[in-house]
């Protein structure tokens, strides 16, 4: 009996990843939801008052719309998204064999459009792309994030981690300075969260519309007075990959509402 416990304990210690300085212990991780006031939480909790759900509705309509020279809708290959897309968003960004690198859900949608529907990609942050990715990610609501399990992603997760730890901009701040070291404190009246991307794409009250994680990352970079990477840049993909793998085990909330 004692032997068994010792073996299990040893196995746990051996397999759990070592925490780097400043990283949040797994059971101390909290979604941005827990940092918001009760009114904003109420907005997210109720599907008929969550403005993000308007975009999910739009995405549902786009899912069955035939496009391109192939005259195909997403539904023609993927059927009912409720079953086929369940558990998909929680493993993104995922490794794409043809590209030899990770791609985000938005990039995957555009790859499908190019390769299978034979139509033009949707511009980043366009209403249609946001609606589609919100619809797909919403099918994983409540499911635990698994991003980063694939060993092929390791060098890209590492790249993302380095970007997260690196000081940048005129304010010379690294993401970790706020989001690992100072969450729960306030910056100009707003609570600093842990930056767990559990609800993207989300309805941000500041934007008064739905937006992607890349939009949020770019505005953070502008916030520290650094030049933001372009949408779809490999650095943003690596950061998203790192952030999602840092949140592994936490449930998806898409579409979340945030201040």
């Amino acid at each position: 009996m004692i032997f068994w416990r010792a073996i299990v304990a040893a196995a746990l210690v051996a397999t759990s990843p070592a925490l780097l300085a400043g990283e949040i212990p797994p059971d101390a991780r909290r979604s941005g939801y827990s940092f918001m006031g009760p009114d904003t939480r109420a907005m997210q909790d109720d599907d008929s008052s969550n403005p993000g759900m308007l975009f999910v509705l739009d995405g549902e309509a786009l899912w069955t719309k035939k496009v391109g020279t192939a005259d195909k809708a997403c539904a023609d290959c993927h059927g009912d998204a409720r079953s086929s897309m369940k558990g998909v968003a929680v493993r993104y960004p995922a490794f794409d064999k043809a590209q030899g690198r990770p791609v985000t859900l938005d990039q995957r949608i555009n790859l499908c459009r190019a390769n299978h529907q034979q139509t033009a990609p949707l511009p980043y942050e366009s209403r249609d792309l946001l609606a589609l990715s919100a619809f797909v990610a919403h099918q994983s609501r409540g499911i635990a994030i698994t991003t980063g399990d694939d060993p092929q992603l390791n060098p890209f997760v590492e790249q993302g981690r380095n970007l997260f730890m690196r000081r940048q901009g005129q304010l010379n701040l690294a993401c970790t300075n706020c989001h690992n070291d100072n969450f729960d404190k306030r910056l100009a009246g707003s609570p600093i969260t842990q930056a767990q991307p559990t609800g993207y794409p989300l309805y941000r009250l500041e934007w008064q519309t739905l937006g992607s994680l890349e939009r949020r990352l770019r505005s953070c970079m502008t916030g520290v007075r650094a030049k933001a990477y372009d949408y779809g840049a490999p650095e943003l993909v690596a950061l998203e990959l790192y952030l999602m793998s840092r949140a592994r085990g936490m449930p998806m909330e898409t579409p979340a509402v945030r201040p």
Partner: protein
Amino acid sequence: MLNGAIRNVAGEAPIRTGKVKLDIPPLVENGNTVPMTVSVASPMTANDYVKSIHVFNEKNPQPNIGNFYLSPSSGRAQISTRIRLADTQKVVAIARLSDDSFWQVVADIVVTLAACTEELN
């Protein structure tokens, strides 16, 4: 501006404080989307009901927020919506009852802005 907008609705009639309740978070997370509920204590019968509710603000570029028109068949004089508040300011809600009397409530709201600004594309 605020007083002018109120006079547009109430004319010279006296406005008493009471009966109206404003439910707004005293410290809003983001001034762009502030949840607000206005309710008026009223039996909402054919002889005693709330005709309309008018909401105003003090420091936005424009004083009006919304006008809401009810009837005895409303059952309850309560509306909820989401509003924009440009700065820390007062919000005033005025109810017009079926006897054309006016009642009001004033709330002080603190608005802080979101921390990181975005570049407009």
